[in-house]
């Protein structure tokens, strides 16, 4: 990255901080069991910001996201969310603080109906939040029409919408998306990204891992390139797309 | 675990990671060392306890023969089971049923036609052969449909089958029956006597072999000089013979394990789909493994329960199966040496030692008489008479011993599911797999360039 670009990234980062940091990952070392995958990871997401993580296979993108949600073992560093240290919390607690997570595969309860899936999203509340439910139905009308259908019988794209809808039931401040376009037929991919844009426009911050790096960078505010479990590059989506080195090495020219 | 440390010291290795050397060959010495060392340690403990507590010589020698007998018979069944579970990954908890088939068939074949429960009156060797064959056939009947089931379902099917077998032998409907004009019977609930009980037959046979008989006489006279009764000496003879059979089982199963056949079994245990994708007819391999294991269980049943001279259906309760399983898990599934070690640990330490201690305590006295019920024993505790409570415990050592068995099993599953001997690198091949000499130069070169790839 050239000098000027680094400077631009710095400015971008300044702006983010001005925007008020929602998630802050600092010096994080994490992995599974004894196996360390992330080293010294630094990452921030501002309130309402749209951030993506890209990088080659095995770079630790999904692990980075999982470590935010308490699904990995932490060996060092901290994760702070909205002023609270969530480093040692389990997912069940983290959800209470306004984080939602959509895993990559197998992300619906296939033997439950669509509606029951959504209700499970609000399990920690005493009552099913009717307005949140209605908001999800408004966002994904197909889910309202198919309320009583078993989730397992829906198509891949519909399941992905259901999984997102379930995570939105608690109206999280930050939504974590693990490869939302994975395995979708390409005609559906654009639609999926549009919907993510909509969710972000409504004020929910997004942290997303994507294989489809070009499209993701085109849409996001800011991107992180991970290499070998470490921070590689950071910058606005446009800058990363324009960066010759990043293009060559990670985006296939 | 201290036993583990002890065993480590015996083998001189931590996790028994023998080098690429010939499989079994190099390890055989240390494995024998482990087993012999363990048995000697057990003997020493039993003798020491007996001597310290002032038990008589006959009692001590008898206890040792009992320990040896139990270790041997458990080792036989555990080795057979290890073929199923340790090598092939078949979760068979119907072991007692297959032992029942073997033993009952042998008993029915050898019983005299005019006995209370009539039989075919065949000689013992024919009875043994028929017993093994029958166990294998029942194994085949079970295997044909059931081996494609997942492990927990196979477990339920096998234990249900074992119960069906036991209930069938228990039934009065087959107490005596007639096939092709020949009267046969199982004896129903009252059981069946074993005409040619292996114990007597074997000892008589040994006594008639020239040379051996001299050795046996010498052994016998030394023991009887120490005040040991003839029946105990006979028990020792039979125990020796069983040890020889254990060696034969071990040899056979090591050969199976260390062969391309065993390699396929191992691959089935790890991931059957992979084996299928590599062109192995896994169904056939599983059936073979199951049948061989079942017939070995049948023989083990004959040598074990047959030697008591009498069997009834309740000899083959499901808990017999669980005891065998626990012994296998203690030693570590997948390793034949582990199986023998597990058998010794279970039979000697978990099963026989508490009983031995209780019987010494009972014989030598010193404790108040035991309260008749648990409530009274607890009452005694309140009256500050803890010894009475202890006496109640000793009086009820049977159930307590089984509680201990349960605790050991759970602790093992939690802390050391791979068993005392741990994962052992027993290479499934008939030869050592180190690189044949001629191409050694190239390895070093390639290995050097690729160092970074390891985790």
């Amino acid at each position, binding site marked *: 990255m050239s000098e000027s670009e680094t400077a631009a990234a710095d400015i971008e980062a300044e702006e983010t901080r001005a925007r008020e940091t929602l998630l802050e990952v600092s010096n994080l070392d994490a992995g599974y069991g004894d196996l360390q995958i992330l080293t010294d990871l630094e990452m921030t997401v501002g309130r309402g910001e749209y951030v993506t993580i890209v990088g080659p296979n095995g770079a630790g993108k999904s692990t980075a996201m999982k470590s935010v949600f308490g699904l990995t073992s932490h060996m060092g560093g901290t994760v702070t969310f909205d002023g609270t240290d969530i480093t040692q919390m389990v997912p069940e607690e983290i959800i209470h603080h306004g984080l939602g997570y959509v895993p990559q595969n197998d992300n619906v309860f296939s033997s439950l109906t669509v509606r029951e899936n959504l209700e499970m999203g609000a399990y920690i509340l005493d009552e099913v939040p009717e307005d949140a439910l209605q908001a999800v139905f408004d966002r994904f009308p197909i889910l309202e029409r198919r309320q009583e259908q078993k989730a397992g019988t829906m198509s891949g794209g519909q399941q992905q919408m259901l999984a997102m809808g379930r995570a939105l039931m608690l109206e999280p401040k930050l939504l974590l998306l693990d490869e939302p376009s994975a395995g979708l037929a390409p005609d559906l991919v654009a639609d999926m990204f549009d919907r993510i844009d909509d969710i972000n426009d409504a004020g929910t911050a997004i942290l997303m891992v994507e294989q489809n790096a070009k499209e993701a960078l085109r849409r996001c505010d800011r991107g992180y390139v991970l290499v*070998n479990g470490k921070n590689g590059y950071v910058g606005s989506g446009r800058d990363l797309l324009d960066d010759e080195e990043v293009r060559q090495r990670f985006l296939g020219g | 675990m201290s036993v583990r440390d002890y065993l480590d010291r015996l083998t001189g290795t931590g996790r028994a990671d023998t080098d690429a050397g010939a499989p079994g060959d190099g390890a055989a010495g240390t494995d024998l060392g482990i087993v012999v060392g363990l048995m000697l340690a057990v003997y020493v403990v039993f003798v020491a306890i007996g001597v310290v507590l002032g038990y008589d010589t006959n009692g001590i020698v008898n206890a040792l023969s009992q320990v040896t007998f139990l270790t041997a018979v458990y080792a036989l069944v555990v080795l057979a089971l290890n073929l199923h579970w340790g090598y092939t990954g078949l979760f068979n908890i119907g072991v007692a049923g297959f032992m029942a088939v073997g033993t009952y068939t042998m008993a029915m074949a050898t019983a005299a036609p005019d006995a209370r429960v009539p039989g075919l009156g065949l000689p013992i060797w024919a009875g043994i052969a028929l017993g093994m064959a029958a166990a294998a056939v029942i194994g085949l009947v079970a295997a044909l449909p059931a081996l494609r089931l997942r492990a927990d379902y196979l477990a339920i099917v096998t234990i249900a089958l074992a119960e069906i077998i036991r209930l069938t032998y228990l039934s009065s409907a087959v107490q005596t029956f007639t096939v092709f004009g020949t009267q046969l019977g199982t004896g129903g609930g009252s059981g069946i006597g074993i005409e040619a009980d292996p114990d007597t037959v074997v000892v008589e046979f040994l006594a008639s072999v020239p040379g051996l008989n001299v050795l046996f006489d010498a052994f016998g006279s030394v023991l009887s000089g120490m005040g040991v009764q003839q029946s105990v000496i006979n028990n020792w003879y039979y125990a020796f013979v069983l040890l020889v059979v254990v060696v034969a089982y071990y040899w056979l199963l090591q050969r199976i394990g260390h062969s391309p*056949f065993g390699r396929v079994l191992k*691959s089935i245990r*790890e991931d059957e789909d992979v084996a299928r994708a590599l*062109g192995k007819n896994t169904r056939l391999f599983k059936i073979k493994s199951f049948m061989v294991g079942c017939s070995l269980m049948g023989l083990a049943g004959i040598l074990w329960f047959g030697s008591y001279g009498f069997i009834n259906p309740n000899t083959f309760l499901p808990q017999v199966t669980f005891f065998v399983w626990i012994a296998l898990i203690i030693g570590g599934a997948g390793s034949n040496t582990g199986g023998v070690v597990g058998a010794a640990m279970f039979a000697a330490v978990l099963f026989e030692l508490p009983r031995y201690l209780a019987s010494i305590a009972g014989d030598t006295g010193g404790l108040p008489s035991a309260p008749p019920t648990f409530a009274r024993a607890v009452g005694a505790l309140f009256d500050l008479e803890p010894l009475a409570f202890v006496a109640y415990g000793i009086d009820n050592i049977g159930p307590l011993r089984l509680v201990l068995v349960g605790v050991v099993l759970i602790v093992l599953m939690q802390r050391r599911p791979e068993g005392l001997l741990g994962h052992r690198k027993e290479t499934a091949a008939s030869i050592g*797999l180190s690189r044949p000499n001629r191409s050694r130069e190239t390895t070093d070169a390639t*290995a050097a360039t690729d160092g970074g790839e390891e985790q």
Partner: protein
Amino acid sequence: MSSDTAGSGSAAGDEPTAESDASGADTDAEAPASATGRDDDAGVTATGREADEVGAHIDGTPALAVKNLRKTFGGITAVDGTSFAVEAGKMTGLIGPNGAGKSTTFNLITGFNRPDSGQVLLNGDDITGKQPYEIADRGLVRTFQIARELEEMTVLENMMLGPQHQSGESLWRAVTPGVRSSVKRDEEKVLERVWEMLDFFDIAHLAEEYAGNLSGGQRKLLELARALMTDPDILLLDEPFAGVNPSLENRLLEHVHELREQGYTFLLVEHDIDLIMENCSRVLVLHQGKLLADGEPAEIKADERVIEAYLGGEVE
């Protein structure tokens, strides 16, 4: 999955190393020809087949053909009347989104699932509905999407498992005294091939390691090497590069190309469309269980239907 060269910090440094690694493998690679028992005709076949490649049509019997293959699972149609052919000695790619039926197609071809209707032909012979072991026996061998190595067996044991009809796989031969010595002799022959193959794939230094201790990429190498030990004609690779880091991916690709030059036929399923386009001479596109397109990479890239339904904005 841990990535290699954790200390290097920048991925750029890896690439040249990977290249030199691969070329290093090339120089060693005389061995594999004999390792796979094809030393005599490898060169000839390869050039012979190169000549065919110009035609791009399949003359005579295709190595593998499926006709009208159909499979439903509980009312959902996974494969819906697919037909295609794979030419001998070529590398054919199979692409499509998740749920397009790629893995099911693989399972139907290799006997892991039984098709509801349709046919699978191997060198012209009908193998529909045969057991996996019979199909592998006829020279069609698969690998799995997630490398399925036999975890508690060493790399050597994994490799020794490969060859078909080993004399010691018969129980009585394995145990009977006297006969066993012939088993040992056969094992020694297999062992020699195993080491040659390990050298070819540069994993000889891992020989004593339990397969469960290997990294994701090493497992993929082992799985391919083990499949080759069965002496197949056609290899079906299910996402062989998924989760493999870039430098190892290059190495794996080198190996595959080299093997193809020796005359092996490949059918591979991959997510990475660019990788398929660059490396395969023919590409099949599955969509909703049906074959959407079948042609050379250039044709596929230009195919309107494919662009519309599949490649979308990817092609710029």
